[in-house]
C-alpha cells in the first residue's frame, strides 16, 4: 500500500520548488505552476527542433531564468509598493496569461515528454520506476546545490537578506530590487526543472500544473516553508496520506481522498502552526 510514494515524488519535487521560491521572494506565487508549465513547453519545442536532451534542458533553464527576471522587473517593479493582495491578483493574472498563451501556441492535446532515466521498473512490483527514482535524486541534487548557494555565496546571502528584511538589506548596500529579480529568475529556473521532471509522468499539456501546484503547496506548508528537507518529506507525506485515505476509509474514502488529506494537513497545522520542520518566528510588538 505504498502506492502513494509514486505520486508523492512528484509532490515533493514541486514542494521543493515552492519552498525555494518562498526563500527567495517571500511570496507564494500562484503563477509558479503555469510558469513551470510554459518552461516545459519551451523544452519540448527545443526537443522537437532536434536539440539533444541535456542541451535543451540547460537552455530551458537559462531561458526560464531570464524570463523570470524580466517578469519581475517589468510586471512587479511598477507595483512594488502595492498591497500584498494586489500582488496576489497579479499572480492570478499571470496564471491566466501563461495558461492561455500555452494553449494558443501549443494547443491542448497531451504530449509525451521523454525521460532521461527511462521507464524501467526498479522494484519488482513497480512502486518506483526509474524515472521516479531519477526525479527524486535530481530533486535532492538541486536541494544540495541551493543549500550551498544560499549558505556560502555572497549573492545567495544577499538574496536571503533582501527577502527577509528589505530595509536593513538596503542599508548595508544590497541592491534589493536586483536581488528580488534574481530570486524570480531562480524560482523560474527551479520551476522549469520541476516541470521537465514531472512532465514525463503526467504528460505535457497547459493544465498539467494546476493540481500539482496545490499538492506542492500542501507538501511545502506541511513540511514548513522554511525547510527544504521538510518540503520533500511533506510532499511524500501528502502522497502517502492521500492514498491511504483512499484505500482504508470506507464509503467516502475513495471519493474524498484529497479533502481528507487536506483536512489532515490543516489538523497538523493547527497544532504545529509553522509546519512539521519550520522554525517558529517569535512575534514582537
Amino acid at each position: 500500500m505504498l502506492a502513494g510514494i509514486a505520486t508523492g515524488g512528484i509532490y515533493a519535487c514541486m514542494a521543493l520548488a515552492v519552498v525555494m521560491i518562498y526563500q527567495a521572494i517571500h511570496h507564494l506565487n500562484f503563477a509558479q505552476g503555469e510558469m513551470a508549465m510554459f518552461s516545459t513547453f519551451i523544452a519540448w519545442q527545443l526537443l522537437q527542433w532536434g536539440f539533444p536532451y541535456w542541451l535543451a534542458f540547460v537552455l530551458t533553464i537559462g531561458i526560464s531564468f531570464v524570463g523570470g527576471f524580466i517578469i519581475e522587473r517589468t510586471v512587479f517593479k511598477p507595483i512594488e509598493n502595492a498591497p500584498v493582495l494586489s500582488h496576489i491578483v497579479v499572480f492570478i493574472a499571470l496564471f491566466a496569461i501563461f495558461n492561455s498563451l500555452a494553449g494558443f501556441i501549443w494547443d491542448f492535446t497531451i504530449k509525451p515528454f521523454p525521460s532521461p532515466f527511462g521507464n524501467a521498473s526498479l522494484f519488482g512490483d513497480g512502486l518506483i520506476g526509474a524515472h521516479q527514482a531519477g526525479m527524486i535524486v535530481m530533486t535532492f541534487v538541486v536541494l544540495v546545490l541551493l543549500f550551498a548557494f544560499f549558505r556560502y555565496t555572497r549573492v545567495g546571502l544577499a538574496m536571503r537578506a533582501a527577502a527577509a528584511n528589505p530595509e536593513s538589506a538596503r542599508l548595508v548596500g544590497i541592491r534589493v530590487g536586483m536581488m528580488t529579480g534574481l530570486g524570480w529568475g531562480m524560482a523560474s529556473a527551479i520551476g522549469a526543472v520541476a516541470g521537465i521532471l514531472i512532465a514525463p509522468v503526467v504528460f505535457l499539456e497547459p493544465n498539467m500544473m494546476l493540481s500539482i501546484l496545490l499538492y506542492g503547496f500542501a507538501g511545502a506548508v506541511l513540511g514548513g516553508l522554511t525547510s527544504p528537507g521538510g518540503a520533500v518529506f511533506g510532499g511524500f507525506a501528502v502522497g502517502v496520506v492521500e492514498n491511504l485515505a483512499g484505500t482504508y476509509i470506507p464509503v467516502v474514502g475513495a471519493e474524498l481522498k484529497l479533502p481528507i488529506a487536506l483536512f489532515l494537513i490543516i489538523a497538523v497545522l493547527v497544532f504545529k502552526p509553522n509546519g512539521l520542520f519550520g522554525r517558529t518566528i517569535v512575534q514582537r510588538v
Partner: protein
Amino acid sequence: MNTSISMRAIGTAVGFSVIAFAAASAQEMGVTDSTIKIGIIQPLSGPASAYSQIAYTDQAYIKMINDNGGVCGRQIELILYDDGYSPPKTVEQARKLVESDEVFLIFNGLGTPTNSAIQKYMNAKKVPQLFVATGASKFGDHANFPWTMGWQPNYIAEGKIYARYILDQHADGKIGILYQNDDYGKDYINGLRAGLGDKADDMIVMEQPYEVADPTVDSQIINLKSSGADIFINIATPKFAAQAIKKAAEIGWKPLHIVNSVSNSVGSVLKPAGLENAVDLISANYGKDPQDPQWKDDEGLKKWAAFMDKYYPDGDKTSSFTVFGYGVTQTLEHVLKNSCDNLTREGVMKSAASIKDFETDTALPGIKINTSETDFYPIEQMQLMKFNGERWELFGDVIDGSQATN
C-alpha cells in the same frame, strides 16, 4: 468535459441543391431572407479548453457551408461564445444568444453540467438545443424536453456493450474499474452494471475514482493491480487514460484492458502512452480514426482532410475533436436542408426527429443515424475493436447499444 470523441464525416449531399425560396411571411426569430443565425457555447478558456477545437471546427465547417452557397439559400451567421465550462456562465451566454442576439437555435453546446443548466430555459423558450456534445443519457428525453437532442452514443449504452462482451467472452473475470468521478464516469458504470445484471457485484472487485483535478492516476492503477482484477475498464478522459495505459505497462500489469471510446484515439491517447503499451486494448467506436492507417484511402476521410487543409489549417489532424466537430456540423447541415420548407424552430426539431438511415462516409460501415419522435438518440450503434500495436481491428457485429442488455 466528457465529450465522446467521434469520428465521422458526412458526404456532401451534392444532388441536394433544390432550394426552397419560401416567401415566408412570418419569419422565425433568427432567420431572415438571407441569413440564419446560430449560436454555439463551448469552453474556449479554462480547464476544459482542450475541447475548444470542436467549436473551431464547427465554425470552420459552417464557413465551408457558406462558401458553397449556404443552406436553404441563406448564409449561416455563427455566434460563438465561451462559457469556461462554468454553468452560471453558460446560462448567461445562452440568454445572451436567445434574448440579445436572437439566434435561431443553439448548437453543439459542450458538457453535461453546462447543458443541464440551460436545458429547462431552452425548452421554456422553445429554442432548439440541438446535438449537445455530451453522451449523458438525460439529453434524449423527448417527452419532457422536446427541444433538446444529443448526438453521440450515450455512455450508458456503451457501458452495456462492454458488459455484453465481458459476459460472452470472460464470464468468470474479475473487473477493476478506473472512472472519472462525475456524471460521465458514473453513467458508464451504471450502464456496465445494468449490462452485467445480477453478476455485477460478484464480478466487480474494485472501483477507483479519480478527480479531474488529480495530477496522475498512478496510485489508482497500482491499487487496481493489487486488487487482483484481470479485466481493467478504463473510463477516463484522454490524458488520464494515457497515463493509465502507460502505468499499467510500467508495473507489468496485463489484464484484459477495455478503454472507453472517449479515449481511443490513436493519435492523442495511444501514441503518447506508447503504442507498444497499447497492444490488445479493446474499445468500441462508431467512426473512423484519421490516424488509423486502414482508412488511408477512405473517401470520407479524404474529404475531411481536404476540409481541414482549406478551412482549419491550424487544427490538429491527429485530434479526433476536429473529426467530431466535422461530423456533428454535417448532421446539422443535413437537418437544416431538410427543413427548408418549414424553416421554423419547430420545423427544425421535426426534421431533427425524423432522420432516416443517414449514413456518413466516415462513420464505420453500417452505422446509421436514426431518430424519430420517440427516439432522440441519433447515434446508438457501435462496433468493438482491438488494437494490434499499429491500428484498431474491428471485430464482431455492429451492436445497437439500446438493445445490448442481456
